[in-house]
């Protein structure tokens, strides 16, 4: 089986901060749900940004969906296939209404207006969010915003989901709802979170970012 996303010797540093990723090797296979943990500022978000080309790696290679990705234009396709859920839902819901927001991705992928609308409606329905189509995005609650961003990402029919602290600032019910939804999805995922219980229920494998290195956590290390 080939990896969906694979990095070799991935290297990144920030001007003032120094090296955050030092020769990182990582692979994501179909069906896997990888938990990515690490201290604040370890570079987890940076790592996901590199995978979809929002930041340019300073060294190493990124293979995604069967091809080596180097240039901005290589990554356009990666972004269509890897749905990225941002840490703050407010950053991701930029359209005035829910329907427009969810249809934004499909429209950019070249779907016609009617197609995009019907995809958006279906996706919302599949997440149990029907009836939200005409709601104004900035009037939603935190949990609702999170579900809508998930719908917006799923509407692009990605192969992989990259989730940056998805359960952040959600209350118990909203968190449970998100957990149930994610468990039911067949996608390969990388999940950043500080919420151990959430990760325990969701992930199939854990890696931890320490001192710019990705360390595979085995059952034994997790238990400690």
């Amino acid at each position, binding site marked *: 089986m080939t990896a969906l996303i694979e990095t070799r010797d991935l290297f990144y540093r920030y001007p003032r901060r120094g090296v955050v990723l030092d020769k990182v090797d990582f692979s994501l296979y179909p069906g896997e749900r990888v938990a990515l943990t690490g201290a604040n500022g370890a570079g987890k978000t940076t790592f996901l940004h590199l995978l979809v080309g*929002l930041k340019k790696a300073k060294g190493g290679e990124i293979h995604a969906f069967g091809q080596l990705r180097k240039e901005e234009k290589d990554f356009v396709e990666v*972004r269509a296939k890897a749905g*990225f859920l941002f840490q703050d839902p407010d*950053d991701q819901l930029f359209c005035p209404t829910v329907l427009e927001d969810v249809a*934004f991705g499909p429209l950019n992928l070249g779907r016609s*207006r009617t197609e995009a609308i019907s995809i958006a409606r279906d996706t919302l329905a599949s997440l149990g969010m029907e009836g939200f189509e005409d709601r104004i995005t900035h009037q939603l609650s935190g949990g609702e915003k999170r579900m809508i961003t998930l719908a917006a990402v799923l509407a692009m029919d990605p192969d992989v989901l990259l989730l940056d602290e998805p359960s952040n600032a959600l209350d118990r019910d909203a968190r449970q709802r998100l957990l149930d939804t994610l468990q039911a999805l067949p996608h390969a995922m990388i999940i950043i979170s500080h919420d151990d219980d959430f990760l325990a229920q969701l992930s199939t494998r854990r890696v931890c970012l320490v001192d710019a290195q990705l360390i595979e956590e085995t059952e034994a290390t997790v238990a400690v």
Partner: protein
Amino acid sequence: MPQFLEHSGTSWKGQRLKHEQSLIDSLDPRLRVVAAFLFALVVVSSEQFLVLLIGLATSLLLARLAKLNFKRTLRRVIAMDMFMIFLIIMLPFTTPGEVLFSVAGLPASKEGLLHASKIALKANAVVLCLLSVVGTMSATTLGYSMARLRVPDKLVHLLLFTVRYLDVIGQEYKRMRRAMQARAFVLRTDRHTWRSIGYLIGMLLVHSLERSERIADAMKCRGYNGRFYLMDEMVLARQDYTFMVMGALFLAALTGLNFL
């Protein structure tokens, strides 16, 4: 903006939330914008007292029809009047003409007084009409109708972006402001206050700029390629045509009255 609008401003969620549906809401938003514009045009260019009084009466009627929140509207209108008042008070004394009365040796002229009351009538009529006809739609709808009225695309999307993030940034501002208050900060007339407020604004801008960078990233991730899309349906219905005809006749009549 006047101070007491601050609250309604920062927790701004558009006008829709507390607003009851009304007759005016059943009209096409484009029509409402155009109607408000034409009304303003007719009222502002009229010089007859009768016309202006009818104009103000119409605005009051519209405010009733739109079920405007009485207290809130009154506060806003008074805020505007306070702003003009100084202009209006001065006019009678600076316009030459027939002396009506005098204050502290300064003569007040009849012409000046008339001019001042005309300005007051016009300004109030226009603002009331604007608040009841356009101000009762959600800001998003206003954006859509501007797009349909061929306002440039970029301007419309700029408006929609601004509206989208007003609340987010308003909350951010409020939290920072509260945190300052919690450290015993009190507004005074001194340099410490001004420096602190300058820092607050600067920090708010830095946060906003960084947020906009994250939004741009999020847009890229969703395949953004330089186009935005609007999805709204605006179709003129029967009541719109009725309103159009009646409105046109009414405005024509108002204009005509000027020449009687």
